[in-house]
């Protein structure tokens, strides 16, 4: 077992886990197509039954032990997952909207980088620091982006909002004073159907002044 895999805290390596799971018939068809090309997908496609493994995930500075299948995405764990003591993870702020890396509704930060949680396997998130919309505020102190979104009414139905807030916070971590074009560029991976964009741009500018 490599150091990295030890750090990730599972008791079997991902490679061995995937190799050692029998000869059922379903796996090849149920692995999401987004995986094609990745190491796991190649192996999963060789054929193997759906099985599960228990992994640790660090979400919002809290450790969760969850049982996942090879195909389980990080987003599924956040929204629908249950830890091994039977408590719902219930972090439903990130949304599944397009299910294919197009809309940004499921955006979370993994080691400080924005990630589409619908496109990341839960297993690949082991050993990483995951921050969701629920972990962005410091207790009752909202993140400046959150305050600015409220102030500018940068939300209507609000379904896209968690994704936009996380992306905006990540953008400002990298660029403290983005221009309008840089804001558009930084948020181009997110979609809002209600059309809140103009006020989102205003909110990011306001937040940048406060950070």
């Amino acid at each position, binding site marked *: 077992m490599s150091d990295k895999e030890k750090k990730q805290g599972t008791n079997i390596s991902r490679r061995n886990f995937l190799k050692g799971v029998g000869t059922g018939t379903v796996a090849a068809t149920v692995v999401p197509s987004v995986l094609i090309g990745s190491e796991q997908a190649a192996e999963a496609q060789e054929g193997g039954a759906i099985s599960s493994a228990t992994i640790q995930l660090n979400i919002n500075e809290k450790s969760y032990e969850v049982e996942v299948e090879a195909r389980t995405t990080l987003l599924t764990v956040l929204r629908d997952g249950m830890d091994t003591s039977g408590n719902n993870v219930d972090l439903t702020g990130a949304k599944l909207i397009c299910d*294919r890396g197009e*809309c940004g509704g499921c955006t979370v930060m993994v080691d400080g980088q924005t990630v589409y949680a619908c496109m990341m396997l839960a297993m690949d998130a082991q050993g990483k620091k995951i921050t969701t919309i629920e972990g962005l505020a410091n207790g009752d102190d909202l993140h400046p982006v959150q305050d600015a979104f409220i102030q500018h*009414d940068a939300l*209507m*139905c609000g379904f896209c909002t*968690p994704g936009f807030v996380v992306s905006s916070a990540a953008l400002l971590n990298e660029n403290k004073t983005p221009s309008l074009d840089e804001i*558009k560029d930084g948020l*181009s991976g997110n979609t809002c159907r209600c059309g809140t964009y103009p006020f989102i741009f205003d909110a990011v500018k306001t937040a940048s002044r406060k950070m």
Partner: protein
Amino acid sequence: MASWGEASESRLIGKRITRLSGKDKVTGKAKYTFDINRPGMLYGRILRSDVAHATVMGIDMSEAEALPGVKAVIPLIEIGNKLRYQGQEIAAVAAETDDIAKDAIRLIHVDLEELPHVVTEADAMADGAPQIRDDWASNQSEPNIREDGNLEAGFAEAAVEVEATYHTAVQTHVCLETHGHVAEWEDEQNLTVWASTQGVFGVRNDFAQHFELPANQVRVITEHMGGGFGSKFSPGVEGHAAAELSRISGKAVKLMLTRKAEHLVAGNRPSMTQHVRAGATRDGRLIAYDMKGHGTGGISSGAGFQAPYVYHVPNLRTEKVNVATNAGNQRAMRAPGHPQASFAMDSLMDELAEKLGMNPLEFRRINDANEVRQAQYTLGAQEIGWHRRNSVAGSGTGVKKRGMGLGSGLWGGGGGRGTEARVTINSDGTVEAVTGTQDIGTGVRTVIAIIVAEELGLAPTDIMVTVGDSQPGLPSGGSGGSQTTPSVAPVIKTAAAAAKQKLFERIAPLLDAPVGDLRVGTGTIYVVSDRTKTITWQQAAGQLGMESISEGGQWDEELRQNGAAGTQFAEVEVDTETGALKVIKIVAVQDCGLAINRLTTESQINGGVIMGLGQAILEERFMDPYTGRMLNANLEDYKVPGTFEIPEIKSIVFDTHRKVTGVGEPPCIPTPGAIANAVYNAIGVRIRELPITSDKILTALVEKKA
């Protein structure tokens, strides 16, 4: 007579107030139907037709039923019945996880006998096309014909004529929260449903009827919902399926549509084609209008539009038909029929104006009887800098050419009767406002708080507002037709006024003053004739002891008004080498009546403009005539506006009176027409088909050169 008072007297109404749900929405705490997790909840999925037209010969669900984790499987169509569009429901499953439900769907085997299909209007209207509706004589409905004046005499009077064909594509709603429900039976007689809906009470009544229950034994909850735009009024097959799966399994069932199904079956804006011949007099009066048009709402009818639109033509003949195709049903989509109508009419107006050698703005002034819009023309033209517009279309120099155009719209939004509401003042000073409307993102929760707070001298955040729940038994209508705020506001205001009156009656003796002399200050109640007599809100409420004051309200005709006129001006830039179209700026002057919350009203105008922009330059449902399938049923190939498409938007809340008018829909109406006219002004070639994409621009430019 009830009134909202003068603007100068308003402390909160008409100001920019942040929405009450803001904090929950930015922290991810807001719970949408999609986010509901009930103990032991199962996940539902639907097997849908992959073909556009077929007869169901058999459904074998046994393998799916045998899959571990599957708790219920139900058929959704009878053997021998026809599937008439891709995506139509065949069967549904409920399983312990969504992934298992997905697997189970694949294990249902369906035996189909395929039938010939037609998915485009051209195919449906062609001679010898297979007929796809048994209740129509062909694939076209009976024509709807309207005649006025004397068409021939009108054309005889015309100095110029234009003949053209305008077309708009089918658009889908793309609600980011797909249609869906979480259904849970408490026992055989009591059903609770979390629904992503625009109409809590309509959905409650529908479920009650479907399961033959008394209405008060169905509870429908919609605390937050992720967009509807007209497509979410009834539970649909998926809602009934969720409740049925829950009944059979004895567990709560969540069933949300997939993104693909959302495109296929959850509604769309019908297409529109108009062949128009129209004429105007030398002095610029529209005089004759002859139009033959059609549209498809898929297998359903309802592809209507107004023609002519907004401007008056004395002599006309119009003929419209619905065309049936093997595609999902149309549903109301933000100002149904209007943006299509506006695009065609405003394009036509510009074409006629050009033939007359007249400024298109001047031509509209002559033909527009609406006084509000007349004032909006002046304001909008100033804001966009109309004088900078090319006086000769396409006369700009360089590769990138700019142009300007305008479009117009009209909507109702006057609200209606049928809302019940209650405002309660408790002895601890807390205030509750309850009604059965729903906040679909327009901010009605905050509007309610503002009205109550204004009436009682409190802050909006002091008011606990409950909407989106049928349990309190205070019905309200669906959020459609831009009716929510104008329907709810009068009832909430009168309820708050009645509660205030009751409180005044209780404390008048304490202040030793006649009830009529009491007024609310800010967090206080005082005697108008003797200002030294003041008590705080808390002290006043404290007098109530164990008894809360709880008052209902009434509909009041005088507090709302129908009719929201709008005008938009667009500036665009076209790259004549690549065909790339960039919308630079939109000025939207929108009549809003009395905007209760200026901030959220501006949000709605922005949102309408952006949806109109999507229709103008991006959105189109592509159907494959050979397979009968939608080619772009995802968010990758079906483009909705993203950050890069957003122009500078100047949303002008044009308040014309002190009565409430709904404004959710009208701001999306004038946008496509304004953009199309601006494109023409930039490059001197007219694109008469939405969306205006680069390929169409390049083709038109090449044809012009040839």
